[in-house]
């Protein structure tokens, strides 16, 4: 995965670059919108992280220009302001997500993963989460190279959860997604599929957590090292 980081603050940029590199991304870092446009002339990236407060041309304008050039890669905006207008404007101009500075690295990584997964889902038929891969075209689920056998309803539940991970998926929406299969489906039936899925995913380090009063969420068992809770 190759990422473009557009940030003029050296300290912040080197921190983000280090964190992303450690997480396995290849990061190209530029300090201005002009430089970013040059780099994007010849090379392609899987996603861009753009700071709003850039010299001369700001990050919102850069995002707009990228979109008007037809670049479809996911864009994550960094901003020091969390005023509502800034967010709305950023998303209107074609950004896919935003983060307010200062932020924690694990959250940046999580947002980035979600963005990349969504763009993958749009461009390729393979969705992934941790060790799990879902090939929509062939209706095949794999984990660590092993084929996982999923029934059609289990597949629908799995696909829905995967598209939304790491956000939780609500039971109501899951029900709605399943009504295509079964008119008379009950919330209890979902629990049956979920418990079957749990049994199939847990050996591969993926947990399907119930969120009381809401729905379910896919989680990596043990989380990632950077997701460890802060020391008191």
């Amino acid at each position, binding site marked *: 995965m190759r990422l473009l980081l557009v940030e*003029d*603050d050296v300290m*912040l940029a080197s921190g983000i670059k280090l964190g992303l590199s450690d997480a396995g991304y290849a990061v190209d870092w530029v300090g201005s919108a002009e430089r970013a446009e040059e780099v994007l002339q010849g090379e392609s990236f899987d996603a861009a992280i753009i*700071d*709003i*407060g*850039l*010299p001369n041309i*700001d990050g919102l304008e850069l995002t707009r220009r990228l979109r008007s050039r037809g670049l479809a890669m996911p864009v994550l905006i960094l*901003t*020091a*302001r969390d005023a*509502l207008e800034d967010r709305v404007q950023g998303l209107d101009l074609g950004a896919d997500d935003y983060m*307010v*500075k*200062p932020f*924690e690295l*694990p959250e940046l990584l*999580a947002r980035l993963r979600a963005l990349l997964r969504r763009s993958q889902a749009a461009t390729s038929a393979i969705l992934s989460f941790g060790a799990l891969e879902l090939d929509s075209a062939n209706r095949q689920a794999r984990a660590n190279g092993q084929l996982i056998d999923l029934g059609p309803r289990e597949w629908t539940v799995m696909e829905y959860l995967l598209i939304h991970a*790491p*956000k*939780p998926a*609500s039971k109501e929406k899951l029900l709605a997604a399943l009504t295509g299969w079964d008119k008379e489906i009950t919330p209890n039936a979902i629990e049956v599929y979920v418990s079957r899925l749990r049994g199939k995913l847990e050996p591969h380090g993926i947990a399907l*957590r119930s*969120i*009381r*009063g*809401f729905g379910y*969420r896919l*989680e990596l068992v043990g*989380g990632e090292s950077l*997701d*460890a*809770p*802060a*020391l*008191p």
Partner: protein
Amino acid sequence: MRETTGADPATAAVAERAAALSVPAAMKSGLQRRLLLLLLAPLSLFALVSIYFDYETAGNAALQQDQQLRHLAPLLADSVLAPGRTADDSPVMLLAPPVEEFIKARAGFAGYRVSDADGRFLAGDAWISMVVPTTREPEFHSMEENGVTYRVVVQRVRTAAGELILQLADGSDARQQWVRSVFFKVLLPNLMLVLAAALAVNWAVTRALRPLLALKEAVERRSPRDLSAIDPQSTPSEVRPLVASLNGLFALVNDQAEGQRRFVADAAHQLRTPLAGLQAQVEAWAQAAMAPAAGRQLTLSADKIMALRSATRRASQLANQLLALSRADASHMAGQPVHRVDLKDLCESVLALHLDAAAAKGIDLGLEVRFAQVSGHEWLLRELLGNLVDNAVKYTAPGGTVTIRCGPLEAQGAAGEAQVFLEVEDDGPGIPAAERARVLERFYRVPGTGGEGNGLGLAIADEIARAHRAQLTLEAAGSRDGVACGLRVRLVMRSPA
């Protein structure tokens, strides 16, 4: 980074208010001008009306003059007793007494002329120019001679001397005399009256407005640093309500400025602590790394790095919360437009944000939500709920339970309106009843509380609740062995119609 704000908006707001306070300066002159205008305009109008009536009277006088000439014309005809010896000789005349009197009374400014039927001069004053009348009716016209305007009646009449044209001229033209006299008799007194009245009114108005002027100066002397109240006893009773509202505004601005000063001092003090910790750590490491034996290298243990990380996170969180607190300030939000907020959606999205933190502590974070709406500021309510959930997750022991709830309330409000509630309940240690009021204060932390809190979360929530004209209530969620435990923080708001 370029994303820095310019002047402190609070300071700007204070300056703006101070500028607004100098309005009475303009008000004074405006009042004076208005009073003068209101008093002098009718006065001038009266003067104009008086001049008009004088003019009308003069017009009547002119009509009376024509009337007199008309009466005298037949008498002049009767004055012709017999024709002259020849056609060119003046006829034999004996002026009738009224005519003679008339001419005598206006010595030099009146005269008559007798001409034959063709207008040739026969007798009288030759300077009266001839206008041949076409009818037998008396005709009137004006003529000018030696700078005097004459009113002339001319009539063709049959007399003892045959058909003649008679003219009678009157130079004592009332209109002209009026023009001459009008300035001295009417206009000048009127103008002087208006002028005198203007001076008197100006003097009176200035004198009457003096207390207002004094008030204006008293207001001008005030500065954002000194907004002491103005003594209402020294002002006229009419402006006492104004002084009272001014004093109210002063008190408000004072309170706000005082609040801001205290807040900035508190904030700086609070930010100093985590920053000092960070700095001390990094300074020590820098020193160690630069020591000759270290060879510009330093190996850090994971524990140290984790401690550093948690210190920086605390500083970041504090900065964020300070910003949120200053923005949630109830007085700033008063004028902002409100929107309809779906509390169920809000609860679900806040839940999603805190699942990671809850999962890391093994806390069961869940929802019990029913559809409910309020009108308010969505991002503020999100901040409020986020702070409550953050607190609950932070202070509840691993394995505990935190529940976010919202929905309609059975009980109606004081005015009989429908109400909704938003609440967060945990089964953590709770807050002793004696401390519950104080935890809403800024930077206050319950003694003996560990963790990374900064004492702002509940203060922010409370501020936001107040911006929505609602109040946070804190109570024990349950009891264990007769001892209260857990915490339920609830916000009750009116449901939009």
